[in-house]
């Protein structure tokens, strides 16, 4: 079985051969590094889909290397919208700055009476492993590199629905600019999340919370309605 991996030094795809049989991509990458080409560079950690280290793109789709089973002809590339440090290894500093910008943490603790259904409000959101797959899949980054992005907004949402948070407004205030309204709701993030998180839904929910706090869609405000150009007067009777 052969796979192609994008090498950063030459910016070309290099062909590697693997023995036949089922193998997780991470094991395949290790096999190549250990036996064929020690210069091939990638990030690896827990092997069990929980440390968030090993996300790459396979045939244009984000996958955790440790969870993806290699198929003949697969094309392996680094995550998008991240500076490539070497081969499949990327710099996650800029992407993870979105966590600080969106102030996705518990701002002001209050004692609460959380129950089982409260746990469910953020159970899936808190499965996030910061693998950056969603960030890489998000098309907004092609036009706005400062977008807060799916994982930071999901995390902001997770704290905003936490009964222990007495200052939800600050979180909502901090996700307006380059935040919830910049999302196109395309759902690419949801499609690639290895933990089954749905950032698109979380962003939609955050928009609802934003409206409750008095915010509205800025793009909506710049549209115009009821001008004569529309060809009819909405106030006119029929």
């Amino acid at each position, binding site marked *: 079985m052969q796979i192609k991996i994008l090498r950063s030094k030459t910016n070309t795809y290099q062909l590697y051969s693997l023995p036949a049989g089922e193998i997780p991509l991470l094991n395949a990458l290790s096999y190549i590094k250990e036996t064929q080409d020690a210069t091939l560079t990638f990030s690896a950690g827990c092997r*069990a889909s929980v440390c968030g280290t090993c996300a790459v793109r396979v045939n244009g789709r984000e996958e955790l290397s440790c969870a993806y089973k290699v198929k003949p002809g697969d094309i392996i590339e680094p995550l998008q919208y991240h500076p490539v440090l070497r081969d499949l290894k990327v710099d996650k500093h800029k992407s993870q700055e979105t966590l600080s910008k969106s102030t996705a943490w518990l701002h002001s603790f209050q004692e609460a009476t959380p129950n089982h259904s409260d746990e469910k409000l953020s*159970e899936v959101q808190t499965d996030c492993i910061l693998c950056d797959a969603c960030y890489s899949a998000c098309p907004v980054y092609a036009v706005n590199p400062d977008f807060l992005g799916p994982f930071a907004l999901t995390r902001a949402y997770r704290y905003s629905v936490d009964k222990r948070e007495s200052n939800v407004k600050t979180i909502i205030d901090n996700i307006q600019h380059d935040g919830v309204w910049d999302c196109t709701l395309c759902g690419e993030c949801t499609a690639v999340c290895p933990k089954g998180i749905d950032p698109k839904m979380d962003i939609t929910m955050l928009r609802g919370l934003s409206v409750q706090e008095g915010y509205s869609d800025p793009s909506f405000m710049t549209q115009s309605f009821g001008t004569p150009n529309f060809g009819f007067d909405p106030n006119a009777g029929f």
Partner: protein
Amino acid sequence: MIDVLIIGSGGAGLTAALSAKESGASVLVAGKTYPTNSQTSMAQGGINAALANVGEDHISSHISDTIKSAHGLCDEDMVRKMCADAPQTIEWLENLGVPFSRLDNNKKGKDTIAQRQMGGASAKRACYAQDYTGLKILHTLYDTCLKENIDFLDEHYLLNLIVKDDTVRGATFFNIRTGEVIQINAKSVVMATGGYGSLYHGHTTNAYGSTGDGVAAVLRAGGAVSDMEFIQFHPTALKHSSILISESARGEGGYLVNEAGERFVDELKPRDEVARAIFAQLEEGQRVFLDVRHLGEEKLMELLPQEVELCKMHEHVDPAKELIPIKPVAHYTMGGIDVDYALEVNGIKGCFAVGECSNAKVHGANRLGGNSLLEIIAFGRFTGENAYKHAVYASNKEADNTQKAQDKAQIEDIYAQENTSNFYPYRELLGNLFYEKVGIVRENKQLHESLKEVIEMQMTQKSMGISDKSKTNNQNLIDFLEFRNALLLAPTIISAAIARDESRGAHFKVGFEEENEAFKKHIVLQWKKNNEE
């Protein structure tokens, strides 16, 4: 100069950082990866505290369970401190926003946290967040560190501690991105560098990076290590991938069965006993399985969603319908850097150690499930405070660059070294050797053989090197440095195992199957300094 330098950015390191900063220290956290990549993310089952949210429990029961499981090798004062601090530790996590699983009991705060049964516990004591407890604690700690503006230095690989007059003055690091050797001066240093379970390469639940870098650095710097022979084998890892299936699977009612479908051990005994019972079955040629089918799909998805996913992905088994093939593999290192009551390293003043890298003598010969997350948080906070206190009176004088110059020269030597034998196969060889001969059941003949093989491997290491000569982002070099640390620690484990002619907790030796009062002590190892012999 920084007050407190924290090395390692897992749960112990982040907790120590928050606590040192809260005490008033300036703090820097340096780690070889990003903060949330650490081993803490893999802790699944829970964190122990006698909250009695689900049935009766007492701190005294937590203490006695822990002491019993430690088989006489713990320091009872340290156990008492950890267990007594447990409820307020959970409260602290609750106040940071950790998303624990909850009960419907109309109570407040930590009294609503769900608790489950773990092996060796006399009550439902492990607070959990589904089977993602470590992950969710770690990420909440990270969020809090961002909130508190903790400074991080990611992708910095620890080379050596800088020690002068038996006092730590900082540490040297290899910047993985740029390839530079740097020196960080600090008044106090906290080692939070994790265990050495990855010595058992290929036979461990641990991430690749658990190579005992900090333990090795302390040895090189003249500090003491202890109880190195005590390595916990987790009874249930997936047979083909060594991926962990949490003890909570048994805590929630899962069975262990052999090929004949017979149960052969009380599944809720401590890990050492269960692992040996499984090993005995495997030695008889039996295959062993975890059976959770009777729990039903709905309960499995509620309580153990991660396990279900991992079984499907890596073993092609649906736990709701099929048996899960398992084997015991190396999971946790009880031994490590020898510390005193303040978690200060014996032999190096101002240097502290916390978490799996340290031997705070709370786990003794066998750790209880749910006590390691407790240790990293309870003692992480304590260590942060102690490191700050030391920093208050520590010298402000910066260390010279002797250590840095030495380390730089050594890295240059590695680049210049002709690589005549590839070290990667040796890494695998070392893992196999340890699993077979320094494993669940040991015997002196095999231990002596393994020591000989390890020493031969250390000789061969001189002809090993790196074939990737890139200055920047050289993972080949990091893998090699990690392998060297593992190889440096290997003889300490084997020689302590040879010396311990008895069976106690996780250390079981053929021919010496009973506990021997004469060995109710810690085996402490420390390198003599060249000029002091």
